[in-house]
């Protein structure tokens, strides 16, 4: 029986629990993004493609580790790994970036996100961090398996393991560079369309189209053009940065090494700035 003066009490209650701020939202978006990248918490169909790519990468790593332990030869170094697997990384970017941003556009969830204290910068940084982590895991885990294969079969005892670790850490750093570059470009392209199919096609087109430009510039009859040729494609740009930082990639950069570093940083920064500008205003569908 209800009290006098109350006609209907259907049990509405105010929320009086703790209200988490922007940081918690960012964190939630990051965790959700990283899980979505690998299809965790989603249907089996959503897992096919990311795990296909991850499986192939793992397979390659296991084969490399096996050859290393049987013959003692290193067929693929930690630094070369990303470059050799570049097609798979492009494909992975084309799968994940539309998952992270195009779905939100298509489903019209952005106005809901931004009606909270969440800001555009928070959204972009959470998505970017999730994508970077996803790509880095894609590269870092196979590299770690290669490391395990090498470390357990080393003949120099603990010293051999530390030598191997000294090779692995720059490899991980270089993978992080790849992850930053691919995440920035991938998210930028994907953020312009709500259709995942077109976003995926666009990302692949951007990465593949730039490769032949390197070939063309390398064939021009000018040493300067040849040494600057690798700037025109993200993949060779990263190899150039790696070379400048002291890795061995057999690229002829001449004295232009620093330019590669500058362009890589600028490219990532510009992509992120455009991404921020793009989320200044989101249409509600």
């Amino acid at each position, binding site marked *: 029986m209800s009290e006098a003066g109350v006609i209907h009490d259907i049990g509405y209650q105010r929320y009086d629990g703790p209200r988490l701020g922007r940081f918690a939202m960012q964190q939630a978006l990051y965790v959700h993004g990283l899980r979505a990248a690998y299809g965790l918490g989603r*249907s089996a169909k959503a897992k096919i493609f990311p795990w296909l790519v991850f499986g192939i990468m793992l397979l390659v790593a296991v084969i490399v580790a096996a050859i290393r332990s049987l013959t003692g030869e290193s067929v693929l170094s930690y630094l070369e790994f990303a470059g050799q697997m570049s*097609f798979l990384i492009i*494909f992975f970017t084309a799968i994940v970036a539309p998952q992270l941003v195009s779905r939100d556009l298509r489903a019209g969830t952005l106005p809901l996100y931004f009606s909270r204290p969440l800001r555009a910068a928070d959204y972009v940084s959470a998505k970017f961090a999730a994508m970077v982590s996803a790509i880095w895991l894609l590269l870092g885990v196979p590299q770690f398996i290669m490391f395990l294969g090498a470390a357990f079969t080393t003949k120099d005892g603990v010293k051999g393991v530390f030598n191997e670790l000294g090779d692995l850490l720059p490899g991980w750093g270089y993978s992080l560079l790849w992850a930053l570059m691919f995440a920035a470009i991938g998210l930028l392209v994907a953020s312009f369309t709500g259709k995942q199919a*077109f976003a995926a*096609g666009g990302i692949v087109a951007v990465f593949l*189209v730039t490769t032949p430009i390197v*070939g*063309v510039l390398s*064939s*021009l009859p000018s040493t300067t053009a040849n040494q600057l040729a690798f700037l025109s494609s993200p993949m060779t740009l990263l190899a150039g940065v790696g070379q400048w930082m002291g890795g061995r990639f057999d690229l002829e950069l001449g004295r232009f090494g620093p330019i590669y570093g500058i362009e890589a940083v600028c490219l990532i920064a510009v992509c992120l700035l455009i991404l921020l500008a793009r989320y200044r205003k989101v249409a509600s569908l």
Partner: protein
Amino acid sequence: MSTVAFITARGLFGRRRALLLLPLPVLLIGLALICRAYGVSPDMWGQAVIVGLGLVVVLPVVALIVGTGVLGSEVDDGTIVHILTKPLPRYEIILAKYAVAASVTAVVSAVPLFVTGALAGSIKLGGALAVAAVVGAFAYSALFLLFSLLSRRPVLVGLVYILVWEGLLGNFVSGTKNLAIGQYVITIADKIAPTEILQSTIGLTTAVVMSAIFIVAGTLAAINRLSSFSVAGETS
């Protein structure tokens, strides 16, 4: 049938996304013009521009965007229901869509390849590339049209084909070359106008027969799939 084709073509060109098709051919011709202007020998840049960009990137990517766009986007939007409920035989729907996809791809890829080939060598090379690109456009379109009926995510399946099958495995496992449309295109162009730029790895007969098999089998399978097509919700 002509109405379906007309509506498909309008859906392809009526929106902004048709502009996506423009940069690739422009880049192809632009690079060829730059190399030509610098007076570089075509032997140096022909391989990178014609094969590396034209046949390996522009042709498959355009075919992928167009081929999955004609039917895949209708499945995605759910508007496919409107066509399926019309009193039209399913093969007419597929043939109309296929004709649009293949001819648009053929025009968008063959014209710039003709220009590039003419700049790199002779009109004959340009013609050979154009013919090969048309064959490739028909084969790729049949395959990608089939993909858009087999899977809800045809672009990703198509990308697996382009990147993993033709790109990655083609480099390591030579056996896959007999089952890669890209190799047929290169072979056909090379046999019509033999140059240093193109290097065919399989026989002309194999290339022509296999292309025909891809076209016919792909279209028949697509008709078969559409005959028993069930409309379901979007994948999660």
